[in-house]
């Protein structure tokens, strides 16, 4: 299965273009890391992928489905999106119920199995009967990630999944991504955590002032030198030091 964005532009009603002429594609089994400055339009792009927003120009297809002609609930069977603020999407009274919501709602025959697997992958089994709001914020974020996994979609799109996470939850996420990539799932991840996601990314896309200024392999991006700076970004300090000390 493939996601394809063809010449997509988007503006909020009455506003200027937030995204301009974006073209890219991702196959299942791939990991696309999307980077850009705060306010570059990354979160807007994720909302276009699951049909919450519709392109003003151009088109996005998820497999055979054109997001312009299909509603979010249908697209949700193929791509599952989590947003930055966990409070935006948690509403059930136990962690297990929260995680079970998507597969149940999507009428997945193996809803229970998907729920338990997602709880296990996110290391949430021991708190499955807790109220999500009794968990620390970082763990609550993992609940939203588990909810997305449990949907059993081919594609997963995460908006800043490691923001506010400590190394404990971060390594849970790290292993989860490795596991699901091996299963052939596809990822589109918006993140500033280049240290973690450079390792997983099969491709990196740089979003700057609403347009894509680079898509390619991580190594090409690191070696390019100027792409990140031009997008108002930079490499993690440890990478910069390596370069400064002329290390391999």
């Amino acid at each position, binding site marked *: 299965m493939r996601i394809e964005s063809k010449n997509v532009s988007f503006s909020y009603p009455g506003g200027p273009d937030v995204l301009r002429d974006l073209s890219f594609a991702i196959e299942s089994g791939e990991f696309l890391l999307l980077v*850009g400055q*705060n306010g570059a339009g990354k979160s807007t792009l994720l909302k276009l992928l699951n049909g919450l927003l519709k392109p003003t120009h151009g088109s996005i297809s998820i497999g055979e489905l054109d997001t312009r002609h299909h509603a979010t609930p249908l697209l949700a069977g193929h791509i599952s999106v989590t947003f930055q603020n966990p409070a935006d999407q948690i509403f059930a009274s136990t962690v297990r119920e929260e995680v079970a919501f998507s597969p149940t709602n999507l009428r997945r025959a193996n809803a229970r199995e998907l729920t338990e697997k997602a709880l296990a992958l996110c290391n949430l089994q021991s708190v499955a009967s807790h109220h999500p709001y009794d968990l620390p914020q970082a763990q609550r974020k993992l609940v939203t990630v588990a909810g997305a996994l449990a949907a059993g979609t081919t594609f997963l799109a995460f908006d800043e999944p490691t923001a506010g996470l400590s190394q404990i939850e971060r390594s849970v996420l790290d292993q989860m991504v490795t596991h699901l990539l091996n299963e052939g799932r596809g990822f589109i991840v918006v993140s500033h955590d280049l240290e973690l996601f450079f390792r997983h990314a099969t491709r990196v896309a740089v979003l700057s002032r609403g347009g894509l200024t680079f898509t390619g392999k991580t190594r090409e991006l690191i070696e390019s030198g100027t792409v990140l700076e031009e997008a108002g970004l930079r490499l993690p*300090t*440890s990478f910069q*030091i390596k370069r*400064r000390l002329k290390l391999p």
Partner: protein
Amino acid sequence: MAHRVILESFSYQYPGQVTPALADISLAVPKGQCCALLGPTSAGKTTLLQSISGILHKHHASGFASGKIVIGDESYAPLPEEIQFPKIAYALQDPYVQISGVRETVLDEIRFTLENLGRWDSSTDDSILSLLRHLGIDHLAERKPTTLSGGETQRVALATILIAEPDVLLLDEPLTALDYVAQDRLSDLFKGIKERSTILFTDTHMEFALAVADVIVVLEKGRMVFSGDRKGLLDHIDSFESILPSHQWKELIRTVKVSQGPEATEAILKAMETI
């Protein structure tokens, strides 16, 4: 003017809990210095900031505290019982909670802090705009605070606190939604307000601390597992593998050791200064 912050054998246990959230913490941050409190979730970082700010006692008056907290020349045994804004200002972890939501523009949201303190007049707008410039968000001055992106919201929330010019600035995970360039601006800003404010901030990563902190403390499950400076943190990096994201730094130190020998951490810190 910046005040020193000292904790002497400070412990705290929330009401109804069987284990302490903080156990026997001793820490000294000289006035005008910047202290990073690092550690994973539930290490006690937020509790530590809240105990200094007075919020902890306000919210959980029946919690058990022992030890002593000193702020400037004032000594509190065991902890301050009143919120001392704006002398001591505490920025919440969740920027969406920090922003009032009742003001129509970013500029007005920040004026709101000064109005509440009785410090606002038409001339203070210049200091607000200058602060927004330092944070890289002056172009957002006329935007509605509730329409901003995550990283933009976080910086507006910070501005509502920074404008109060506190003696002690307590920031709970101020970096979570910031890209590296926004972090660099914040690090410059921290260095620029040293005379005015002593800063204590929490973080789950070590990169920003390595750039700005004079004092670094690592907490795990309520206990202090490290206290020292940047070099000390790098020298002990192997101890923090499971609690701080340190993989890339560990790799870096190993590679630099091959070419520079045992002086690797000095070489790294020196290279950092030139970036």
